[in-house]
């Protein structure tokens, strides 16, 4: 790169350098081959100090940096060391400062000046786990949480998506739907139940929300009890070490901290079509909807879409799912399609290869009537439909664009809003970390965020070394027929290893509890993907059937232990269960053998 001549370029470079100096407790401008730089870096490593290094010789515009540093500090040579925004100097000066204690003074001076050791932005599963662990390790920690109301005005308490508008209400409403199926099954088992069994939305909604309320309170008690300062305010950075917190009355307070953890999570994406925010709801609204949604159109085929569509249909509602392309992107496509087929057989309508273009209100009410216009993705065909409720579930966006990250220099993927981090959840700005759903290329799952948050706090403050393992994370989609998985999808395994190096074992099965009511024969399905190059190690586990979460959890542990096909074969099954099918898998997919099952 040529030397920078114009003033704008110079100012920009200067502010970039200033940002590095301001946002790092220890900042070293260095050259990778320089022995004096190595000496300084070794000193900081020995002192176990977190420091940021910029190797000027490895950068295209390194000479420009060096020129600017000369202008700013009067020092041309490297290393050029800054501690807590103070220019220390080169190698000799740094060593001298270490000897005479002024280095320690510089280091301490600033850390005492911060209000907190750690500020966590976002009081979801990850943020709570991280802040509580930090406080338990004796650190002064703060967590800020603020729920921006949905366009419909829905808001909720402390605890994040999982507790308030995710896993917890979702699973309870899924359970509600399954109880409906159980009531139907019960007749076949001899229970004489009145024909007019009805479901009351309000009763369910109240019960679910009362439970959530008790969890919100429990989190507040736990934070207070563990000396984490919880502030119900919206946080945004104003400086690399300083945030502004705005509460619901608009009062602004400023806080500083040595370190930060971003744990802001995601919120549902809207479509950007006329009527979406005015008339449609998302999962953020559904679980506390003041009235039964009635005839519902679910837009999207994400797991949120299929789970919500699934339980609404299970409550006896008329449900249509509008799908642009595929179901459950990123999941094993064979499993996704089987889960979808089961929904379809149980009355959920699918409008495939359509995208909505506008939503209009025909009649206000609780619920009202909406008209949805959609167009085909393959032709010019336009269709219309009338629904009481339209639920958008087309994906979620990371809440990273309105928290002042530009003031910190934290890198955000401009396309996705996600934050790339190291394997220690560190962003490109050393004192700022990120966990949970906002991470690029990581799982969006509560237990993953909790694990990452807790381990991060232990590494930062408890001398821990364990990193969060993002491999072989088990999970379950609570579609009406539940889908549990761990490891690779078949599609991904083929991409990574090649079909010829894999053996896929599979089987249909009929849960004993389905036999008497005589339903869903040969709909449940089990599949494992084994790596032939590695002792038939199980690299993908897939289960479609009842209690998928309970079944998958233990196999997740087995996979963490490196389970092979042989070990599964040597495991004795528990009879009669669904999970036992994994101990007797014999038919390979490549053989094309019959996988239908009939009894013991």
């Amino acid at each position, binding site marked *: 790169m040529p030397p920078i001549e114009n003033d704008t370029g110079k100012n920009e470079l200067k502010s970039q350098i200033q940002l590095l100096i301001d946002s790092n407790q220890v900042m070293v401008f260095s050259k990778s081959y320089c022995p004096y730089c190595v000496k300084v870096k070794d000193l900081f490593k020995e002192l176990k100090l977190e420091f940021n290094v910029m190797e000027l010789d490895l950068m295209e515009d390194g000479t420009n940096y060096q020129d600017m540093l000369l202008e700013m500090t009067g020092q041309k040579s490297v290393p050029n060391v800054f501690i807590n925004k103070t220019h220390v100097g080169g190698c000799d000066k740094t060593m001298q400062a270490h000897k005479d204690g002024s280095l320690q003074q510089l280091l301490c001076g600033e850390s005492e000046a911060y209000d907190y050791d750690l500020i966590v932005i976002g009081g979801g599963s990850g943020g709570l786990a991280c802040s509580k662990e930090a406080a338990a390790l004796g650190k002064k920690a703060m967590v800020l949480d603020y729920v921006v109301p949905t366009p419909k005005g829905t808001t909720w308490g402390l605890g994040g998506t999982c507790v308030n508008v995710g896993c917890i209400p979702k699973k309870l409403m899924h359970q509600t739907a399954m109880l409906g199926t159980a009531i139907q099954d019960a007749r076949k088992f001899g229970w004489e139940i009145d024909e007019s069994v009805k479901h009351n939305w309000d009763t369910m909604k109240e019960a679910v929300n*009362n439970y959530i*309320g*008790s969890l*919100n*309170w429990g989190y*507040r*008690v736990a934070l*207070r*009890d563990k000396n984490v300062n919880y502030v119900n305010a919206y946080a945004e950075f104003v400086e690399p070490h300083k945030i502004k917190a705005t509460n619901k009355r608009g009062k602004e307070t400023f806080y500083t901290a040595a370190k930060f953890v971003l744990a802001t999570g995601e919120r549902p994406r809207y479509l950007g079509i006329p009527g979406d925010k005015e008339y449609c709801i998302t999962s953020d609204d559904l679980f506390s909807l003041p009235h039964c949604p009635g005839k519902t159109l679910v837009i999207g085929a994400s797991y949120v879409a299929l789970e919500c569509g699934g339980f609404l249909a299970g409550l006896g509602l008329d449900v249509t799912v509008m799908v642009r392309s595929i179901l459950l992107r990123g999941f094993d496509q064979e499993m996704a399609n089987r889960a979808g087929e089961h929904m379809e057989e149980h009355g959920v309508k699918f409008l495939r290869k359509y995208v909505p273009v506008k939503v209009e209100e025909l009649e206000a009410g609780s619920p009202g009537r909406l008209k949805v216009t959609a167009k085909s993705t393959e032709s010019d065909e336009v269709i219309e439909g009338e629904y009481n409720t339209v639920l958008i579930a087309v994906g979620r966006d990371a809440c990273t664009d309105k928290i002042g990250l530009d003031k910190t220099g934290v890198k955000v993927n401009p396309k996705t809003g996600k934050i790339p981090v190291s394997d220690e959840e560190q962003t490109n700005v050393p004192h700022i970390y990120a966990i949970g759903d906002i991470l690029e290329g990581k799982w969006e799952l509560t237990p993953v965020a909790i694990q990452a948050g807790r381990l991060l706090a232990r590494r930062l403050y408890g001398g821990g070394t364990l990193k969060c393992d993002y491999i072989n994370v088990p999970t379950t989609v609570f579609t009406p027929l539940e889908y549990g998985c761990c490891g690779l999808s078949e599609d991904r395994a083929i991409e990574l290893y090649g079909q010829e190096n894999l053996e896929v074992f599979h089987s249909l099965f009929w849960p004993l509890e389905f036999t008497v009511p005589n339903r869903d024969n040969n709909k449940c399905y089990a599949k494992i993907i084994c790596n032939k190059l590695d002792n038939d190690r199980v690299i993908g586990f897939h289960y479609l059937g009842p209690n998928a979460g309970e079944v998958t959890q233990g196999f997740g542990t087995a996979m963490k232990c490196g389970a092979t096909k042989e070990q599964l074969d040597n495991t004795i099954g528990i009879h009669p269960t669904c999970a036992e099918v994994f101990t007797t898998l014999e038919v390979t997919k490549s053989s094309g053998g019959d996988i239908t099952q009939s009894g013991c």
Partner: protein
Amino acid sequence: MAHYEEVTVRGYDEFCQAISERKGKDIFAYFSGDKDAQGKSWCPDCVTAEPVVRGEMTHLPEGSVFIYCQVGERAYWKDSNNQFKKTLKLSGVPTLLRYGTPQKLVEDECFKSDLVRMMFTED
């Protein structure tokens, strides 16, 4: 005049009566084991908690109600079918709760003044 009303009741019926007479008010209820003639409760945790809870009562919201409820003798309380456990879903004494909300502090949580104060001072 205190900025809150304190009511003392004994037993489930008196408690319900006190509640029904104060509909729409911000009601805090503290449940404790009965006290003997010397003023000492059979429930040792209640003995520990009471001064802590009382110490924070100056933080009660303006116009609120504090109901001090003795739940009965030990034998009555130990019956898992007693009205407090069955209807009010109490799981232990002492319990401090904000009536009609999920806010509840049970047993040793009532020993912690900052938790009690949180209930009295925050929404």
